[in-house]
């Protein structure tokens, strides 16, 4: 597989959210606005790239039996780093994302890529895989956040272009499920056409 393919698969063909249905909790939980989605996506990308990097370096040192717990410790260390950095430099975003930052630890995408990719491949391709998957995830979250923000409050990235409130339901919990459902239909359709 060429490195370009390795990178780009995370966006459409194997998009974590729209195609594999992984990491749905933060996807639904934080995407009340495009900027929240982007912030969460980038935080996850950082954890994904760093944990893929470290795991692909130490993979031959870890005994097979304690593989999963070791991966979790590595991931949890990077999540703690992200948590502390975000708390210090972007406290407003940190408050918005709340509990979902520590919950990156149990995001199935991160552990899934560690297990399925980084523990079997070279350092370089693991980093590229991490970037591709992470940015694909960030893209999905930004799109979902954007759709919900446009429909729900008539603004995008905080820039308001419609007066009044919009359809409040899209900012609330039910709108997250419904918007994601329709987005999945759309992505399926695009994937089918390009296949």
């Amino acid at each position, binding site marked *: 597989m060429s490195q370009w393919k390795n990178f780009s698969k995370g966006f459409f063909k194997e998009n974590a959210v729209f195609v594999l*249905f992984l*990491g749905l909790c933060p996807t*639904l*939980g934080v995407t009340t606005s495009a900027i929240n989605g982007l912030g969460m996506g980038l935080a996850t990308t950082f954890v994904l790239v760093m944990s893929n990097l470290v795991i692909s370096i130490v993979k031959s040192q870890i005994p097979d039996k304690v593989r999963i717990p070791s991966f*979790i410790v590595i991931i949890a260390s990077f999540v703690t780093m992200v948590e*502390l950095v975000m708390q210090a430099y972007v406290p407003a975003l940190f408050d918005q994302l709340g509990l979902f930052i520590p*919950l990156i630890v149990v995001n199935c995408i991160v552990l899934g890529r560690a297990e399925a990719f980084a523990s079997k491949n070279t350092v370089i391709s693991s980093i590229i895989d991490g970037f591709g998957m992470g940015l694909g995830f960030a893209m999905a979250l930004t799109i979902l956040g954007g759709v919900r923000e446009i429909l729900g409050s008539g603004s995008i990235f905080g820039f308001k272009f419609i007066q009044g409130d919009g359809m409040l339901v899209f900012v609330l919990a039910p*709108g997250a*499920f419904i918007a994601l459902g329709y987005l*999945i239909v759309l992505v399926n359709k695009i994937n089918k056409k390009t296949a």
Partner: protein
Amino acid sequence: MEYIIIIISAIFVNNILLAQFFGVCPFIGVSSKVETSIGMAGAVTFVMVIATMVTYLLQKYVLDAYGIAFMQTITFILVIAALVQLVEIILKKVSPALYQALGIFLPLITTNCAVLGVAILAVQKDYNLLGSVVFAISNAIGFGLALVIFAGLREHLDMVNIPKGMKGVPIAFIVAGLLALAFMGFAGIV
């Protein structure tokens, strides 16, 4: 009275699945049959209650006592992972029947964010030990309730005629959205 408010708020008003989005992966993944979703709900209840108890004590007597609260994430997830293993081993010995019923769901629970989410929430909300346990039990019930209702709906979805592109997961999400809308009717009770 305080506990009744915790119970009602956790089960109906702030339902962990439909209002807070913890544990959506198993919600979409294993909820295609009522039977499996009852098994999953049972396993989650078991682990969630024990995990919340253990992490509460750890937070109070180790992390806070030594001023290393920033280690919370890493400690809690390790405790949960170890606990899941432990529960699996004990169940296998003590109650093979229960192990048969819950067995396949146990490994999945480590990465169920509902468990870690409730453990952290219980600490953040500053409950005492009993309050934390009540909080964990009612969240587990809320999780199970939403899971079983949704599985029942999905069993019926298999039999109805829906547009081809929406079959499977997309329609499941939209139904989940409508279910969440129904649960929003409970808002304002407490």
